[in-house]
Every structure is written in structure tokens, then in C-alpha cells.
């Protein structure tokens, strides 16, 4: 048994349980009578406590026990859900997270003074809630069923203890049977299971060594103390895992993974279920059950992210090798091989798509954590805010999801601090008392769009300009469109806050937000209407790994253009090539589309009698026509990073290796348009009249 792996599982599971716990707490604020939410929070606290007990994390066990007691009192309606209790329960979640964050690989808690001060303050506060309600010295509610169970005495609680002694224990003078005998005098022992899973085969058996481990089911008022007393002399050399039976009965991977023998595990589970399940299981009221929520857990397995990355890398290499094989097979002209290769390529594509999907995660995971941010920040600012989440199930690359968290947090805090008005201001301007903050995700061609919208006061152009001039960012507003003015807030050092607060407004945030988004090959835009609200729009590519693209030849080089941005391809008349090299437009049905020649951009020479094609691409709401030499076809493109040297280069998002071994640069079309729009001003003009542009 790899205890270290079990410990990591415990840490991961606890983090997930804390998220569930917090969701329940925040939902309770608006639905204080929802018993299922209390059950959800209780289950989370209870499981963390049980697992913590396995690793001897006494501080964590102690704290979650208090938490459990308050939740239990709320479930039994001995306490009523109030703002004070909820605030304390929410704060307690942060403390549990703190305790978990301070755990090291040796399962020891290295807590700072401030953490322990907080621990003591919160423990007292939690205890004050339920002790006020229960003057009798019991900490847990005794149920009628407890009384009816002959195995459960009123004061004692059932425990399960796993013990694995050191192989040398007999030679060192410690006899497990004698320890159990002493132990049974201190507690009420119901059952001992002997685990033969480590018993050696005859040929390797040394009768003086000890290979057995045991599971003891017993009752005691204070299980940990009883265990400590009995096993005092062998504590250092023996693996002991103690937990409450009710914890073992609910899902607890860490505990059950101790048993490599399924048969014995099943025997123990059957025994516990037979004797304790009914008596201990919480009984949520049927009318409040929501099976589609927590009850219907999806069957999932956890995979190390590194293993997933390795798989994606290997799939990438396979795609490249596939392209090379395809090229050789096509060169051979063997029809049967070509047919077989086509089948293989289809399968490769399926494998690629399936592998990439493994890395996708819903953006809702990030969105939902803002419930808490909004609650806390709004309280601090004395504002009322309603969070609306749209498109939480939209998926994007997991690495994006994680790295988007920080910039989104800043945008949300900014919206709360600067965007939304105070209650009084809103009422005075005829708006509802509570501000609305919307987090929205949606698919757009080849990308994901994430919006942070508020219905607050909007950006003041006057204030932005005055601040920008004051900070020396610009000299005057001449020639600046409203959009240009809004974009000034992303300049380093810009801040419109009247005073620096601990929430935002230090002027170091928005430029960092933009930088973070840029690093992910994304873009950020802002729109605002003064008095009505502000929208921040982030556009992110779908993935960082493998994409479908069009390969095009421009002069002597080959470029890959992500398929998702391509709207259509048009053959181009050679007679128009001279005009095309200048700033021109193309008529596409009822639209005028500005052309951008990649020959010009990449300084490629044009051969005589060259053919041209135009790829119509979409960037945001705008269309552009990229003039290329030849369209070579679709290609599965494995994105290889360009390296640090080219980090600041816009317009290219990587390179890929073609079947013949040559390298093709991958265009970041949005970045390219952004980069060259200064040199080609016609690109910004999407609304020319038909007479003004060149017609095909």
C-alpha cells in the first residue's frame, strides 16, 4: 500500500469536498430551509474528518468535528440557519483549506501562529453555537435507532481500526494478540478480522516474523484515546488507521484502498452494513432529494495531468508520423496502400479528437467559485450583487481553465469595486437595488468567448482620458475612438480609482490581466456604455495542442491557418494580382471584405503568372480575405511552440512539422490582423460601400 498516494488522494478529495461544502453554504443563504444542502455540507465535513483521522491529523479531525456538530444541530433543527452561523461556517471552510494547505508529505501539520489563532477562535465560535443548544455534555445526537441497536450502547460510538504491525514486532517483544487482549478490556470489542493479504508463501515464510494485519470493530467513547493507550509502545512501528464506522460506510477511497484482498474487504463492508448502516446513515427527507445533483455522480477516474500531457504529446507525434507515412504512400501510387492509409488516418483523427477531449474541462468550474468572491466582496463594499452564470458547461483546454482563474478574478473584483454602483446610487438612477454581474461563456468560430458583464455605471471616457494624460500615457484625445479610450485601461500603471482599496484599483491589475490573456494566445476587448454597464470580452483558442488547419503556400513558404477561423476559400483571378497587392477589398455577396496579402506581410516574392487564392477568415465579428498563393489542403496540425525567442512575436502561434519534414508556421490570424492593422488601415474599415472596393 502506497500511503503517500493515499495521502495525495485525501488532499485532492478534500479539496473537491470543500468546493461542494462551500456551494451548499452559499446556496443556503438564499434557501435556508433546504435540508439537502445541509446534508451535502455535512457529508463533506464528515468525510474529510474521517479521512483525516486515518492519517492522524488530529487538528483537522478536531475542527471538522466541531463543524459537523453545528451542521448536525442545524439538520436536527436544534439550530436555525442564520447569517451569523452561515458566515462562521463559510469562514470555517477557509480554515479547513488553510489546515490542508499546511500539511506536508510526512502527514504532519506545520501550522503558523496565525492559523492556530484562527483555529482557536473559530473552534470556540462553532462550539458556542451547538453547546448553547445542547447544555448536556453530548456532542452528537443520539438517535432512537442507536438505542435499539444492541451493538451500540448509548454513550459509545462504533469505530473501525486497521492495524498492521512491523515484521519484527514479535522479536521485539510485542505480541499483537496480547495488545488486543488489553485493548478489549478498555473498549467493547465486537469483531476482529485477520488479514492474510501479506502472509508469505511457505518458501518465504519466517515463523518469527509477523505478516498479519487486522481490522477491529469496536465501540468506545473516545476511540482515538483508547487506541493510543493500548498501542502506546508500538505506535511508532505500527500502521494504525482509525475511523468512525459511519465514515467507513460512506465513500472513502483512502480507507478502503488499504485492503488489497477484495474478499476480506467485502466481508468487512458486509459486516458493517449489516450492523450499522441503517442506524448511522443520515436520512435526508425524500421530498428534498435532488437525485440529478449529488446523487447522480458520474463514473470518473482520476488521471495524473502529466500522464495526460504525455498522451497528447504522443498523439501529436503519431499525427506527424502519420502525415509522413501518408506522403510516402501517395508517392508510391499503390492504391491498396492508399486505401489502407485513408482508414488509418480516419482512426488517427478519432484518436486525436478523443485524446484532446480528455483535456477539456467546463469553464463553469471557474465561474462557480465566484459565488463566494461576489458574496464576500459585496458584503465588504455594502453592495448587493446578483451573479448570473451562462454557458458554464462550455469546455476548453484544462490548462486554460486553470490559468483563466486569476484574470477573471481581477475582472470580477474590478466590476464589483468600480463597475457596480452602491445601493443608493442605483436607486437614484432608477436601477434595481441589486447589481447584476454576468459571467458568460460561448463558442465562436475556432474560439471560446468569455464575457464579464456588469450593469453598473460604465466606463467614463472623460475620467479615463484625464487619467491617461495625467499619467503620461497619451498627450491628447485627438484621433482616439471611444474604443481606443476604453482600451487605455489595459495600459500598465493605469488606474481610475479615487482611492486604492484592497480589492482592486492599484493600477497593476488590468495590464496584468491582458498579459495573462495574451500568454494564452487569447485577446481581451472592452465595451461600455456610460450609465448602463461594461463588458469585458475574452476570446480564447480551443486548445493548445493539435488543430485542424488549411495549409497554404505563399511564395516559397508553407503556412498553416487554423481551420476554425476559415469561412470560405475563393479562387483569385491573376489579372487582379497587382491591385490585390495594394490595399483593396473583395466583394463577398453583400459584404465588402478587406484583403490582406500574406505575400506583403511575410515579404515573399511573387512568381510570374502566379495563381492566387483568397481565404475568407473571421476574427470576432469581422471578415478578412487572406491572399495566398496556393491552397494545399486540410492538415492535422500539431502545434509546436516557437520558443522563448519568439515569445513577443505576434501573428504566429507556433510551428508544425509537415509530412516531408519541412516546417510550416501556424498563423494566429487575430494576432496577425492586430499586428498589421497600423500598416494596413483599410483592415479596420469593414463598412465601405460597394463602389469603393474592388469587385471580382
Amino acid at each position, binding site marked *: 500500500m502506497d500511503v503517500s498516494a493515499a495521502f495525495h488522494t485525501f488532499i485532492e478529495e478534500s479539496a473537491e469536498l470543500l468546493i461542494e461544502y462551500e456551494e451548499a453554504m452559499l446556496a443556503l443563504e438564499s434557501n435556508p430551509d433546504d435540508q439537502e444542502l445541509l446534508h451535502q455540507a455535512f457529508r463533506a465535513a464528515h468525510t474529510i474528518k474521517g479521512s483525516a483521522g486515518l492519517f492522524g491529523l488530529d487538528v483537522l479531525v478536531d475542527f471538522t468535528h466541531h463543524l459537523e456538530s453545528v451542521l448536525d444541530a442545524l439538520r436536527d433543527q436544534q439550530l436555525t440557519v442564520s447569517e451569523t452561523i452561515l458566515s462562521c461556517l463559510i469562514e470555517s471552510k477557509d480554515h479547513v483549506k488553510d489546515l490542508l494547505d499546511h500539511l506536508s508529505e510526512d502527514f504532519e501539520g506545520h501550522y503558523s501562529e496565525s492559523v492556530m489563532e484562527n483555529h482557536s477562535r473559530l473552534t470556540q465560535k462553532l462550539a458556542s453555537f451547538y453547546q448553547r443548544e445542547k447544555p448536556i455534555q453530548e456532542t452528537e445526537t443520539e438517535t432512537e435507532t442507536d438505542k435499539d441497536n444492541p451493538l451500540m450502547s448509548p454513550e459509545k460510538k462504533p469505530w473501525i481500526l486497521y492495524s498492521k504491525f512491523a515484521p519484527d514486532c*514479535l522479536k521485539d517483544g510485542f*505480541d499483537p*494478540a496480547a495488545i488486543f487482549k488489553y485493548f478489549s478490556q478498555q473498549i467493547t470489542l465486537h469483531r476482529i478480522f*485477520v488479514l492474510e493479504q501479506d*502472509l508469505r508463501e511457505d518458501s518465504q515464510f519466517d*515463523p518469527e516474523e*509477523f505478516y*498479519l494485519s487486522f481490522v477491529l470493530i469496536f465501540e468506545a467513547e473516545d476511540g482515538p484515546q483508547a487506541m493510543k493507550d493500548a498501542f502506546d509502545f508500538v505506535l511508532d512501528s505500527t500502521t494504525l488507521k482509525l475511523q468512525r464506522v459511519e465514515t467507513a460506510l460512506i465513500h472513502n477511497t483512502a480507507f478502503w484502498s488499504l485492503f488489497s484482498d477484495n474478499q476480506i474487504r467485502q466481508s468487512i463492508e458486509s459486516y458493517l452494513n449489516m450492523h450499522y448502516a441503517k442506524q448511522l446513515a443520515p436520512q435526508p427527507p425524500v421530498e428534498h432529494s435532488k437525485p440529478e445533483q449529488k446523487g447522480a455522480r458520474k463514473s470518473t477516474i482520476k488521471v495524473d495531468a502529466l500522464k495526460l500531457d504525455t498522451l497528447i504529446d504522443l498523439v501529436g507525434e503519431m499525427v506527424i508520423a502519420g502525415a509522413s507515412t501518408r506522403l510516402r504512400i501517395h508517392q508510391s501510387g499503390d492504391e491498396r496502400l492508399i486505401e489502407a492509409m485513408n482508414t488509418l488516418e480516419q482512426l488517427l483523427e478519432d484518436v486525436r479528437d478523443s485524446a484532446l477531449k480528455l483535456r477539456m474541462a467546463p469553464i463553469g468550474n471557474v465561474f462557480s467559485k465566484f459565488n463566494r468572491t461576489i458574496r464576500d466582496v459585496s458584503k465588504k463594499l455594502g453592495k448587493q450583487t446578483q451573479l448570473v452564470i451562462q454557458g458554464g458547461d462550455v469546455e476548453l483546454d484544462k490548462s486554460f481553465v486553470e490559468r483563466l482563474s486569476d484574470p477573471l478574478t481581477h475582472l470580477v473584483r474590478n466590476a464589483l469595486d468600480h463597475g457596480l454602483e452602491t445601493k443608493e446610487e442605483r436607486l437614484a438612477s432608477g436601477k434595481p437595488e441589486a447589481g447584476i454581474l454576468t459571467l458568460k461563456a460561448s463558442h465562436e468560430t475556432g474560439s471560446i468567448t468569455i464575457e464579464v458583464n456588469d450593469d453598473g455605471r460604465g466606463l467614463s471616457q472623460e475620467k479615463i482620458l484625464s487619467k491617461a494624460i495625467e499619467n503620461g500615457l497619451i498627450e491628447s484625445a485627438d484621433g482616439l475612438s471611444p474604443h481606443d479610450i476604453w482600451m487605455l485601461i489595459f495600459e500598465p500603471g493605469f488606474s481610475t480609482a479615487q482611492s486604492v482599496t484592497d480589492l482592486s484599483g492599484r493600477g497593476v491589475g488590468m495590464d496584468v490581466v491582458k498579459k495573462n490573456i495574451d500568454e494564452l494566445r487569447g485577446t481581451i476587448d472592452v465595451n461600455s456604455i456610460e450609465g448602463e454597464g461594461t463588458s469585458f470580452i475574452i476570446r480564447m483558442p480551443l486548445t493548445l495542442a493539435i488543430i485542424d488547419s488549411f495549409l497554404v503556400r505563399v511564395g516559397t513558404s508553407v503556412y498553416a491557418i487554423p481551420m476554425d477561423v476559415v469561412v470560405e476559400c475563393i479562387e483569385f483571378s491573376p489579372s487582379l494580382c497587382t491591385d490585390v497587392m495594394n490595399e483593396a477589398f473583395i466583394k463577398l455577396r453583400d459584404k465588402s471584405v478587406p484583403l490582406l496579402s500574406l505575400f506583403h506581410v511575410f515579404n515573399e516574392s511573387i512568381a510570374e503568372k502566379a495563381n492566387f487564392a483568397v481565404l475568407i477568415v473571421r476574427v470576432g465579428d469581422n471578415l478578412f480575405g487572406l491572399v495566398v498563393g496556393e491552397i494545399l489542403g486540410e492538415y492535422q496540425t500539431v502545434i509546436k511552440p516557437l520558443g522563448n525567442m519568439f515569445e513577443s512575436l505576434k501573428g504566429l502561434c507556433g510551428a508544425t512539422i509537415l509530412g516531408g519534414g519541412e516546417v510550416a508556421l501556424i498563423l494566429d490570424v487575430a494576432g496577425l490582423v492586430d499586428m498589421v492593422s497600423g500598416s494596413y488601415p483599410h483592415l479596420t474599415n469593414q463598412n465601405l460601400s460597394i463602389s469603393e472596393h474592388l469587385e471580382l
Partner: protein
Amino acid sequence: MQQKINLPNELTLPFIREVYSDIHFQDGVEACQLDFNLVEEIDSSGMQLMLLVMKKARSKNIELEFINVSQGIEHFLKQFQLSPEFEPLE
């Protein structure tokens, strides 16, 4: 074919290596009796050895029987569900 193995008076650590070397199932044996008549003391090493013997018997399809078990030893074995004919502790 049936075999009978007489156990010594102590199934404890100081004697366990010797006891272990004395317990062998004969070839072709179908049933075996472990005679506890002399056994007065047993500890965890004895318990472990009995488990190994039971395991070996199971793997060779040998029907194993513990006979002449004193009350004290019976209690000990019963606690650990070590004898095939003993009911579990319930």
C-alpha cells in the same frame, strides 16, 4: 488417507521455528487432524502459523480439523476466527 499432527505444549515464539519445521502434510493426504491436546500456550506467532497451515491445507484440498482444543486455546482461536469448525464470534 488421513494424517494426524500432534502439536507441542507451546505455540509461542521461542518454539515456533521448531514447530514450523515439524508440520508437514504427507503426500496424498486428504484429511488432517491437528491435535491440540498438549497445547497450553499460544501467542501471535502460533496464531500466524495456524493460519499458514490452514491456508496450505486449503490450497491442497486437505480437510483440516482441530481436535482436543482446551477452553483457553479455543477462546483464543475463536477470537481470531482461526478454526474451520468454529463459528465466527457473533
